[in-house]
């Protein structure tokens, strides 16, 4: 069972102490930060080049604000590790990957077979997001 896994090339994920967004603002040497659902990911945009890890907390899987936070960071060019933490279930993984997450620290360990099935079940996607999945309208029009 997976208590943590990463999709980043090289596999190994950053083991950094993530500070809160509020603390991050005052700490010029922090390289890892954690965002809560109600916080604005855009506050990090001026500092992306010094951030190696952003943790996005999902206290409850039904609160979908973390998906927007992730996409916003990727759209701004963030290339570091983007980790979904908390109430992360295998049934949300694909949307998380599509939104830009590349590592996961779920509260409950995940079955690797279910993870594999979830990530590979759909061969195409209907909308462009933060991943490189096969975009159906692009395939239709060459």
């Amino acid at each position: 069972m997976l208590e943590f896994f990463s999709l980043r090339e090289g596999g190994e994920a950053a083991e950094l102490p993530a500070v809160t967004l509020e603390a991050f603002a005052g700490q010029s040497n922090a390289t890892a930060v954690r965002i809560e659902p109600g916080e604005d990911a855009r506050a990090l945009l001026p500092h992306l080049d010094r951030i190696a890890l952003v943790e996005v907390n999902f206290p409850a899987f039904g609160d979908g604000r973390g998906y927007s936070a992730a996409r916003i960071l990727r759209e701004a060019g963030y290339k570091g590790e983007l980790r979904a933490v908390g109430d992360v279930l295998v049934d949300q993984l694909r949307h998380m990957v599509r939104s830009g997450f590349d590592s996961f620290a779920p509260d409950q360990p995940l079955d690797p077979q279910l993870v594999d099935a979830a990530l590979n079940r759909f061969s195409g996607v209907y909308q462009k997001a933060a991943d490189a999945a096969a975009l159906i309208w692009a395939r239709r029009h060459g």
Partner: protein
Amino acid sequence: MYQYDQYDQAMVDARVAEFRDQTARRLSGQLTEAQFRPIRLMNGLYLQLHAYMLRVAVPYGTLNSRQMRMLAHIARTYDRGYGHFTTRQNIQYNWIKLAEAPDILADLATVGMHAIQTSGNCIRNISSDQYAGVSADEIADPRPLAELLRQWSSFHPEFTYLPRKFKICVIASAQDRAAMRLHDIGIELVERDGASGARIFVGGGMGRTPMIAPEIRDFVPFAEVVSYLEACLRVYNRYGRRDNKFKARIKILVHEMGADTYRAHVEEEFAHMKTLGLDPPLAELERIAAHFAPPPYETGLSDAIDRSDKDFALWLDTQVKPHKQPGYAIVNISLKPIGGIPGDASAEQIDLMADLAETYSFDELRVTHAQNIVLAHVRKADLHALWKALEAADLATPNLDLISDIIACPGLDYCSLANARSIPIAQRIAQRFADIGRQKALGELKLKISGCINACGHHHAGHIGILGVDRKGVENYQLLLGGSGAEDVALGQITGPGFDEDGIVDAVEKATDVYLANRTDGERFVDTFRRIGMAPFKEALYA
């Protein structure tokens, strides 16, 4: 109408496999109900009063005979012989077993149907005008854009866990036949300076706090509609309230921050998002639009109709509407027989309608938000034969938009959210006004009944609206007057204290008596109400 290509088919097939796996994990205990509930809702499956209820999507209300026959098959094979057409143009089955739901979805997938996102806090079925493609007043068929947006909204990774449900409607005429202004996002196709695009309204809805959507942007070119909607949804996903389920819709966000502030947030996000390559090329909208090309109409047909059969003439006058193609007509099939259950159809009736669509309407049917069915392309020469077939199956009640053409939610007979039963009230009102002459004398009178504040019966938008409430354990009914979901959109006003189940039927009759006593030439019920106000009605109701 749209036909799936291999990519669309692969998506629904994968979704079936995914749900089959998820259902197995629920039944074996690997998933708790709390973890499974959002999943099953996003596959249209509710746990309802008597069993599981499955809501199957009918995208923008359009389907063909093959799909209609599958709906009958599901009613017969997995349910108890009937289905219920809903106010969002979908169909519901009330007696579903969870263990069989994956098989039902697999059957649906074989004809290009699904139950994807028909519930849950995500973007729901996109609705449209039931006369799309055949009404002279539209600037273009709204359904290609609705299909484009259906695909865009399906399995959207960012917008699958919104604060609350999200309903979008697309129309293409000034006349609003789909209650567009009462949706979370309402879209009207428009032309500006020779370019085609969309006028966007955001923040409408019914329920506990009904609101009419304000215009947020007067024009978005088609080439940018997707990125604009992404901006609208992202602002909602980020800022919509999540602390209180009853204040979580986008209408509350737009209202609380103000339309101007919401608009500014969206414009800022849109300026960013339209640079990200999110918009499909116009070629994709054109590809979809090609599926909606007009059918091969015959030309040189006669417009003459033999009206000598009086019952046929009666039906013609209420149910048949003008078609933009000479020699053709739009036919409305009533699912509101007097004393029947509004919107319900038996498997046999569904099969018959499929046959009739194939024979008489280029194999196409529409579901309306008023819970009726439309055959959109019928030759005038075929109307009599069609009518006879409908009449034999109790599908020819001539009551479109009359008082017995009632929109009613399933209510406490079926729904665990309800406070009161709605169907028996609808039946009794229809029976009180059964005489067709009396109904025609009253004229257009849109009566809508909801069994609870969630307003699935659209009672706020009724010329006469009825809301069922629970008054110390006893069913009670509030009366509202003057609402409308058409282009003269308005929210109904409560008359005063509620009535019991006998009283509400009498109250409706008294309200119609006030109308008859006060109307001037050509005024509908709602027009007279708007002119004379609530006072004369209140006086009669509570004398």
